[in-house]
């Protein structure tokens, strides 16, 4: 089982999502991404995430979070909402833990993710997750192992 805390980035903007993944995958954490609320729910209900960073300006993002908390009430996941700084839409404190305004300071976000992910208590009965995207990417970059 992978002992690194796992983080899910939910962002529909391709450029932002890839950038966040690229920055975060070099941290000592396992990183997955989702481009839609539907994909995010699929991942979040089949894996234990220490942290979910979600763009709440994205279509159905709040519905995803509400559904996730309802479906997995036992999850200890810490959720950081990322949204337009001008937005004042209500976010339920039972669902979202903290809010970060856009434009993002990437180095701050990376440090936050690294610091927070390690202190979220692991689930008592962890799910059997497939390898993370960051893990798969690392294996792909290393290339196949060829025995001499």
């Amino acid at each position: 089982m992978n002992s690194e805390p796992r983080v899910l980035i939910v962002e529909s903007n391709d450029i932002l999502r890839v950038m966040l993944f690229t920055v975060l995958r070099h941290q000592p954490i396992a990183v997955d991404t989702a481009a839609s609320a539907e994909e995010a729910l699929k991942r979040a209900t089949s894996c234990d995430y220490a942290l979910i960073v979600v763009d709440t300006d994205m279509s159905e993002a709040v519905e995803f979070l509400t559904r996730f908390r309802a479906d997995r009430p036992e999850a200890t996941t810490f959720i950081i909402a990322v949204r337009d700084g001008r937005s004042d839409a209500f976010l339920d404190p039972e669902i979202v833990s903290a809010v970060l305004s856009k434009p993002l300071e990437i180095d701050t976000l990376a440090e936050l993710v690294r610091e927070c992910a390690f202190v979220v208590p692991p689930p008592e009965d962890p799910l059997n997750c497939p390898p993370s995207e960051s893990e798969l990417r690392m294996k792909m970059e290393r290339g196949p192992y060829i025995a001499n």
Partner: protein
Amino acid sequence: MAWRPQNMRLETRILVVDDDDAIRALLRTVLRRRGFVVETARNGIEALEQLGASRYALVVLDLMMPEMNGYDLLRNLEDQSFTARPRVLILTAGLNLQPVRSDLIVACLPKPFDIDLLVDTVTGCIGATAPLRQPDVAPDTTLPMPSRLN
């Protein structure tokens, strides 16, 4: 602008009191990045111990905590004089808040808090209310020696 000796600086020590490990880690991270000295406590009892041992410019306080909650901590601060007690910034997710003496707190931010807003609020509170700290080193009162005697 108030006069301030050059060798004195603002006390920037902050105590974050929250039972949520991730919230404490988050606040420690963002506030340290702004140059504050951040210490943490998991409940009111730990906070009281730390308040007895060190002086803080600001306490960022969650109200709902086990052991000793934020309300009880505030009651403990009531006996201290206005100048002696730290300023308190409340973070709360609760909707039905108990009445709190307004002179005990400087601001209240609802959870989930906007991280940038919280950092700006803390910076504003520190700038507006922090007491002056005694200088670390005694000021040099000796007159400079003239490099050349006439």
